[in-house]
């Protein structure tokens, strides 16, 4: 095996190996889409975040506008405090509602933002005032049973 043939084959091998890596990075994973160039942070407090995790998407009208960066617990208000980052191109009014929603029936949970009508916009470090917690199955059943029980005394 002459040296030039060898080099050719090795070069070919390295090229297709790199191409495979690139394929995995671009087509399989999401290199570009998950990272925004510049972001600003907002906070929101929820009674119950359900199964929300860090890195979960923040969507508005179904479009990903940011990511959850931190989940903490506020020891004063006994509520969950979620910090998330939004791309600087996206601005929301001060009366935006943040809800924890589920994608699909058994899917992952994400933060949904419903824009309000306020003239003033949320700035970096602001807190989203109006929030709706995640729907927890047990509470739903409990609510259903409570409602059912409340109906009967009417007889």
């Amino acid at each position, binding site marked *: 095996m002459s040296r030039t043939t060898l080099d050719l084959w090795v070069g070919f091998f390295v090229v297709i190996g790199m191409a495979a890596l690139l394929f995995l990075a671009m087509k*399989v994973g999401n290199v570009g889409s*998950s990272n925004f160039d510049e972001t600003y942070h907002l906070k929101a407090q929820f009674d119950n975040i359900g199964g929300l995790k860090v890195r979960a998407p923040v969507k508005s009208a179904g479009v990903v506008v940011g990511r959850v960066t931190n989940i903490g617990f506020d020891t004063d208000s006994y509520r969950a405090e979620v910090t998330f980052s939004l791309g600087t191109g996206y601005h929301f009014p001060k009366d935006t509602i943040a809800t924890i929603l589920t994608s699909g029936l058994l899917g992952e949970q994400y933060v949904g933002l419903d824009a309000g009508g306020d003239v003033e916009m949320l700035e970096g470090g602001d807190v989203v005032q109006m929030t709706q917690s995640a729907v927890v199955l047990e509470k739903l059943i409990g609510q259903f049973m409570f409602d059912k029980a409340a109906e009967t005394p009417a007889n």
Partner: protein
Amino acid sequence: MTGVLNLVRRLGAGVVEAVWRIGFATRFFMLLLRYSGQSLLRLHLTIREIYFSGVLSLLIIVVSGLFVGMVLGLQGYETLQRYGSSEALGVLVALSLTRELGPVVAALLFASRAGSAVTAEIGLMKTTEQLKAMDMMAVNPLARVVAPRFWGGVISMPLLAALFSAMGVFGGWLIGVVFIGVDEGAFWSQMQAAVDFRFDVLNGVIKSFVFGIAVALIAVFEGYDCTPTAEGVSRAITRTVVSSALAILALDFVLTSFMFRGQS
């Protein structure tokens, strides 16, 4: 009673021997690193070994990757469609491959094909006194023969693992989308949403790099350390394949627990 005692004694001796060997192998690794200068300065030596370890493993890696991907596609679809989630097939195939199957299976195949070949080569050179002859000609066999084979393996491994995963995804697509009829758009879009480059793909690459070091080191060490007889070489080859497999799986556990700690 003495039979049991003997067994325990032999077990203890075996463990001591294994620990001693690991220490010896570590010293060998340090020496190897010290004499790796030639592998860099005379690149053609390393390139030659990349050819013999990497290029010649292409066939088995690519074909195996394809089959594994296709099986993932089949089995995955079979299970997912029971819960109406057959569109998540792309996610299942891609995550299984990039995180685990790609690095691990490719490393196991690499150890069996290239690792055993390297052990055989070095072992035979030792048996026919070629290494001693080289030493007598004032050429360090560690630098000239062993180190290039080590680096050839280390460089080849991540590339082969990436190829394995890529072929697997293709195989999954082939079965899922082309043959079974899962929606192509859902296949790729859900996959892209679920597979994170830094988290899944890069971790897989790191794993394959670590496996590459382990397999290459074991292969050259067993060859260099073997008893210089025909039987000794054959035993060394067996040890290479077995030790590599154990090391890969153990390291996989350690790395996985570091990388994917409680994350989904």
